[in-house]
């Protein structure tokens, strides 16, 4: 049961029930980028307002499971208003958190590689790594964000 409760922490259920930054932004100036997980049908649409090297605003639409929805909502809260470089760092750190799984399996007992404090509330998603099939759910919003930032940069 421990794993299960780790997966569905209260904060995750809260973000699932009351997702933050829900809505749309006018494009342009905002950029719209869509993500899709064809395997489970989860969809996300991110509206990114990048200005002067910072992600000044972010809104999102879409649907999916609790993990994908909560992850998106937590992501929005974590990156909104931040400089792009910081956002990219956060994405990187989060990805590491999600891939820690394999490291843990191979070298049991190895100390965590990821600085959980740097992740703040996002650390609540840590429980996902014990459920390999759900990692893709948690990653959807993040991969879509990376895509969006690359688009803006290009």
């Amino acid at each position: 049961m421990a794993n299960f409760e780790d997966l569905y922490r209260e904060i995750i259920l809260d973000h699932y029930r009351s997702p933050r930054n829900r809505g749309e932004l006018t494009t342009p100036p905002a950029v719209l980028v869509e993500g899709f997980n064809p395997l489970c049908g989860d969809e996300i649409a991110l509206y990114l307002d990048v200005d002067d090297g910072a992600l000044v605003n972010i809104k999102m639409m879409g649907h999916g499971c609790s993990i994908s929805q909560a992850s998106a909502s937590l992501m929005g809260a974590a990156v909104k208003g931040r400089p792009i470089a910081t956002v990219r760092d956060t994405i990187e750190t989060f990805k590491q958190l999600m891939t820690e799984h394999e490291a843990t399996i191979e070298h049991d007992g190895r100390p965590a590689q990821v600085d959980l404090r740097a992740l703040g509330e996002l650390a609540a998603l840590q429980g996902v790594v014990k459920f390999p099939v759900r990692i893709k759910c948690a990653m959807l919003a993040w991969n879509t964000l990376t895509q969006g930032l690359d688009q803006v940069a290009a």
Partner: protein
Amino acid sequence: MSAFNARAVRADVPQLQRVINGHPLTYLDTAASSLQPRAVIEAMSRYYELRHANVHRAVYQTAEEATAAYEGARDAVARFIHAPGGSGEVVFTKNATESFNLLAKSWGSAHLGSTDVVLVTEMEHHANIVPWFQLREQTGVEVRFIPVTDDYRLDLTNLDELMVGVKLVSVTGMSNVLGTINPVRELARVAHAHGALIAVDGAQSVAHSPTDVEELDVDFMLFTGHKMLGPTGIGVFWTHEAILAAMPPFLGGGGMIADVRTDGYVAADGPTRFEAGTPPIAEAVGLHAAIRYLEGLGVANIVDHEHGLTGDALTRLALEFEGRVRVIGPKDTEDRGGVISLDVEGVHPHDVAQVLDQFGVCVRPGHHCAKPLMRRFGLAATVRASYGPYSLARDTDVLIEALGHALKMFG
């Protein structure tokens, strides 16, 4: 009456003795893959322990035994589906999907040109869709879909119109999402009246309703070992001897040839032509044991048993959840198998399945390799529970309890 006893079947299946998260395993994922009885597992172990050798053309004793075991499985399959021409009509593949690729890329590429149509249905598994799309890229054949009605049946009202130009009707015997059992014999009659052939995807039906290819009057029957209590790694392709004899080779290599020179090759005759390379020998042995086990239970008894469980589950799900859990499929048990797809109000199928796992309940969330059908009903995914000969009403109890929990947690 028969001695069919689901509790005895359960006792024969080692995995059902497992305890998951403190609960006994409640296996409701037979439509994805069935669990193997001990007799199947042991038949394969014994094969490896005693007589594994490569088949065909060796003269030593274990190789003769291995060959006899492999060919004996072919005989058993022919008998099981009542193949009129016997084992010479049975080709072993690696799974039902390869069987469909064989159908499309051997028979299909020889017979289906740009003015022809293959008629499938909106409720097909991707195995009976994608190979036709691939063939379309090659020959330009039209792939046409029989629509599905709002009550989850094939819409046959315009069938004669749909049949124009059709050379092959390829349809599932039982939907792996809806549980719907299709009127194969009737479709065969229509197909033949239009000069078309008919192929049946028996992956879901072959272990859950008696299959007599002669009585059904079909031309191709394709299925897979692991959904009929057998092992992974083996599938079946059946067709009439005359049709098989006219099919060009598919995969090339050893075993499927009569001769090879540096300037060309001559293909072998019979099922061998389509079995390139070392075949799934141990898997055939396992499939044979599974068929023997199914015959021992009696497929008609399995049908009755699953019918009872399904009817009971449909009633209880309706009563218990008052519409908060919607069944995506026929609401009664007429022409319906033990596959129950659910749409749980406000809870994503992934989350439903995750909660159910906490109760040791194995169900499958997803599109079940039937995305056109999902789109037809505006769904991204369902949670699917499915029964087997080892299922008990107790499994439904646990399912309902766990569904209630999921609704409470997320709803």
